[in-house]
């Protein structure tokens, strides 16, 4: 997988917000979060993964639980609820 630069991702995010494509917005924020995490910037990663989580939650994406778990491991969110 090719890792895009933050600048390229910023441009893609602006376009996705203009289009109102929340699935793409969530995916792009997660990709940005991954880039920050790979750079060792935990605060930056948590910021962008939070945005990915919020938009994933909004559209009912199955990614939401995984993003919540990642944020919980970073100490930034409550753990996902156990599903009965």
């Amino acid at each position, binding site marked *: 997988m090719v890792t895009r630069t933050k600048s390229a991702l910023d441009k893609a995010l602006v376009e996705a917000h203009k289009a109102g494509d929340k699935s793409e917005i969530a995916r792009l924020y997660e990709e940005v979060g991954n880039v920050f995490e790979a750079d060792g910037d935990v*605060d930056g990663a948590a*910021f962008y993964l*939070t*945005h990915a989580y*919020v938009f994933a*939650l909004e559209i*009912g994406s199955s990614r939401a639980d995984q993003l919540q778990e990642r*944020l919980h491991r970073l100490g*930034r969110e409550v753990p996902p609820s156990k599903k009965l």
Partner: protein
Amino acid sequence: MNAHDHFASVLAPITEARGLSNEHYTSPTFFEAEKRAVFFDNWSGIGFGKDVPEPGDVKPIDFLGLPVLLARDQEGMLHVYQNTCRHRGMILVEEPTNIRGVIRCPYHSWCYSLKGDLKTTPHVGGPGQNVHESVDRSELGLIEIRSHVWHDVIFVNVSANRPAFETDKATLIARWREFEKPVFHGGADSSFTLDVKTNWKLAVENYCESYHLPWVHPGLNSYSRLEDHYHIEEDGQFSGQGTLVYRQLKAETGETFPDFNGLSEYWNEGAEYIAVYPNVLMGVHRDHMFSIVIQPKDAETSVEHVEIYYPEPIADETEFNDLRQKNAVQWKGVFVEDVFVVEGMQRGRHGLLFDGGKFSPVMDNPTHLFHQWVARQLYR
């Protein structure tokens, strides 16, 4: 006349009583007082379940200035919330939509499940920190307003002070127990609204009485005479009228709508029309029912939301298209005939010398009962 004397005159026996004074129909001050005393403190109608038919559907409405959100969760349960975020009070939903996941506040993205739980509070503890020890999500869910759905009408008791709906309306539910069955909305052609330049109470009062039928609805005279109607009076709860000569609509082929199952013979030709205080008007017949939610906009303006329901899901059945449309057109015609009288009475309420009116002790009993109920709410 001071307020006490006026209150006494409304509560007097019908032979001596006068109706509610002009200010009750024209004054913004009285309208404001009614918000809590009449509407929020009682079970009031605000809409219909068919307005949020599918899981995930949400619809914002304005209930006397209170921002309210109708929401159907993924299990199909209907909730009524105050349409405001617990953070800064931002309006959450501006247009009807379907929520696939959570309700996200457009301001700071606090997210709520359709069951009202606060799911996340992004950056509440700083950038990238979504928790804070002083922010207890379990205490910050959506404000749920006490609600109950009866025959698809959504009732709310904002002040949460009344007994449970089934208890509060037990007498009416028992009276119409034979109609405690599923109802199915007739579809787009069974739904209409009327904007009327009248105080909401005049629309209720007109509905309560059969006295005006021969003059305002002359089409009924040939088969539903004044003497075929009877009063319905339940002090403090509801009033209205019944008829002994309901005539089913028939198609050219002679076909009629299907009946509600298991009705007693009374309903072969009986029908009843009841004002459920304060603002829901209902009519039941062997083969259909309708509900009208009167939405007060201000002291002198109201909207009547009319919905027609059937015992079976015939909304999409083409064989009933003509009959359904004919039924809706017929009822709309009747309600439109009432517009000039309710608007005329409203204009008459600006007649300074009008004394609230003199009731017919034989014909105006259901109307007087409603005046007394309103007076008791306002002058508690």
